[in-house]
């Protein structure tokens, strides 16, 4: 045993995961024996009577066997879950002779809950786990202490392992008309630009070697031959149809910033040290500077909820949806379709939010975006880099939808005289960035506004500009 272990042993007095006497046992023995013996010696029968119950209950505790190692197991706790309440069962084996057990279990509110004093005869305890926020979290940590008769001998306290769930971002039902039902040739429409086998006519052209005979349009061919004065097959024409292809949607999540509506909370460490509002770097605006997770109601929370809802909507239409983390490109999810893809995306959104805020510049590589895919950029648009990224994606030929998730309305910092001015500057800069994207053919809208009309307008503008 080294010095540290000896010190720990001295401080904890041998407490821990083994049966050991409490102060109450020493008190019961000392007072019980002391009063009984002293009463006998002094011929004071009251003293004997005062000490007798203490002595009797202590002797009962001493002769009652308390053996075995209490075991606590958690059963039925899924790895992932939805916001709200879920049930789980805690199995308890308190050992022989145990009478009561103090165990930490979730109670009425959220979190790992308080310690509950329950009877040791209970073998299974049904607990209700409540979580009102998405993300990773600890639901259960059944720390426990098992006590024998009158709590004169106890086993523990034992700090148990934490058990948690990943609460997936909620899928909000999008209002009617939010998603474009058929954005022709681009999103959710199953007609591609290239020729294929659908029933939709693309073109009628002259026959070429390799064309299938059943595609020959005899009416057009005869008319063309008649006009040319020849019945030979040189004027054969074929009907060409569009191909049917899955549409791709790429959700580009900007995890570099997580800001709330209160400007005063955006970079309080900087304000506390220097009192400056301006001149913040991106790192100071980021989450890593604060060392916190996602801010409820903040821009990242809103972006993740929007991404989950959009993914659900597009996947329901049969489209293929992928995810790109602009802060950490390696955390994305490849495009896919179906219910499993929705689960995969919601899980990945939690992973992205967990490691948010470390990158200075957003990254969206061309190979991350399939040709012709709709790119949905979810960002508060607090810097020019993400605007450049959206514009570059639009220039590569993709239809880009910029969803602004900056909380609205923003509130100035009341603790500084520059609060209102700073708010105006931030608003103006933000508006300029959004307008710049619009002028470059990017569809811009705040989260919650109807998407279909904006996409249609952007597509029309792009055709006109071409």
């Amino acid at each position, binding site marked *: 045993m080294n010095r540290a272990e000896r010190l720990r042993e001295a401080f904890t007095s041998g407490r821990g995961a083994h049966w050991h006497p409490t102060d109450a046992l020493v008190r019961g023995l000392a007072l019980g024996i002391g009063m009984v013996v002293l009463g006998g010696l002094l011929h004071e029968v009251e003293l004997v009577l005062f000490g007798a119950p203490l002595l009797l209950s202590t002797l009962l505790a001493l002769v009652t066997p308390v053996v075995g190692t209490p075991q606590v197991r958690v059963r039925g706790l899924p790895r992932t879950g939805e916001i709200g309440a879920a049930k789980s069962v805690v199995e308890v084996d308190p050992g022989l002779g145990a009478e009561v057990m*103090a165990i930490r279990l979730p109670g009425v509110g959220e979190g790992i809950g308080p310690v509950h*004093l329950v009877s040791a005869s209970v073998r299974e305890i049904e607990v209700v786990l409540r979580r009102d926020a998405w993300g990773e979290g600890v639901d259960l940590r059944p720390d426990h202490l098992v006590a024998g008769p009158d709590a004169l001998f106890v086993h523990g306290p034992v700090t148990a392992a934490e058990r948690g769930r990943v609460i997936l971002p909620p899928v909000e039902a999008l209002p009617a008309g939010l998603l474009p039902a058929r954005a022709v040739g681009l999103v959710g429409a199953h007609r591609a630009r290239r020729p294929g086998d659908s029933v939709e006519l693309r073109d009628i052209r002259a026959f070429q070697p390799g064309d299938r005979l059943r595609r020959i349009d005899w009416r057009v061919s005869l008319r063309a031959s008649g006009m040319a004065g020849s019945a030979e097959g040189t004027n054969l024409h074929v009907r060409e149809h569009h191909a049917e292809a899955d549409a791709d949607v790429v959700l580009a999540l900007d995890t570099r910033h997580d800001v709330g509506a209160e400007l005063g909370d955006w970079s309080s460490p900087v304000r506390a040290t220097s009192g400056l509002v301006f001149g913040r770097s991106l790192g100071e605006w980021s989450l890593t500077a604060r060392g916190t997770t996602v801010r409820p109601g903040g821009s990242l929370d809103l972006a993740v909820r929007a991404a989950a809802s959009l993914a659900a909507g597009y996947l329901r239409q049969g489209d293929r949806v992928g995810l790109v983390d602009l802060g950490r490109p390696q955390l994305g999810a490849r495009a896919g379709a179906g219910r499993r893809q929705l689960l995969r995306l919601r899980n990945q959104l939690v992973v992205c939010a967990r490691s948010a805020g470390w990158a200075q510049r957003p990254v969206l590589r061309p190979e991350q975006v399939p040709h012709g895919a709709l790119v949905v950029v979810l960002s508060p648009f607090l810097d020019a880099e993400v605007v450049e990224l959206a514009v570059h994606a639009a220039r590569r030929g993709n239809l880009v939808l910029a969803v602004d998730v900056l909380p609205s309305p923003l509130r100035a910092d009341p603790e500084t005289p520059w609060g209102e001015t700073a708010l105006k500057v931030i608003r103006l800069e933000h508006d300029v960035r959004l307008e710049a994207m619009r002028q470059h053919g990017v569809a811009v809208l705040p989260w919650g506004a109807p998407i279909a009309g904006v996409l249609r307008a952007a597509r029309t503008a792009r055709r006109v500009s071409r």
Partner: protein
Amino acid sequence: MRAELGAGLPAWVLRAAIGVVAAGVAWVLAVNGVEWPALALYGALVVAAAAIPASAAVALIIGFPAAAMVVTTDEPSWPGVFALVVLLHLLHVLSAYAAVLPGGSRVHLDALKAPAKRFAVVQLSVLAFAVVVLLLPVGRTDAVVEVVGLVCAVGLVVGAVLLMRRKG
């Protein structure tokens, strides 16, 4: 046995119960002629014991009334003695359970059924013994009984120590 976890009572109820029981003890002491400075000191000890049930103050709030009753009264007032027999034991048990619960805990009354039954059994035994003592004739004790009593006392101590060593 499977149980659903209810809300339970807050753990401060146990500490409040220590205060209430100690108030009863103080009232018994006051009725039996204990002076107010001693009662004020007792009140301070009760506050300490309720705040920190795992402290030595609990031993003092149990030992102090016993000593006070012996010192202040020549002839015991039997109703007061019987009341203190119950109350001091209750103080001991309540403090023992309160000491293992951190602040903010919840107490489910089902857990206290077995301790309550044992408390009742111990009290009935002791009160039955007290009734026997009351019925015995008062007089000088024989030397043989004194010696047997001393041997029993020594045996009690040795037995308790041996039991402690076996369990510890």
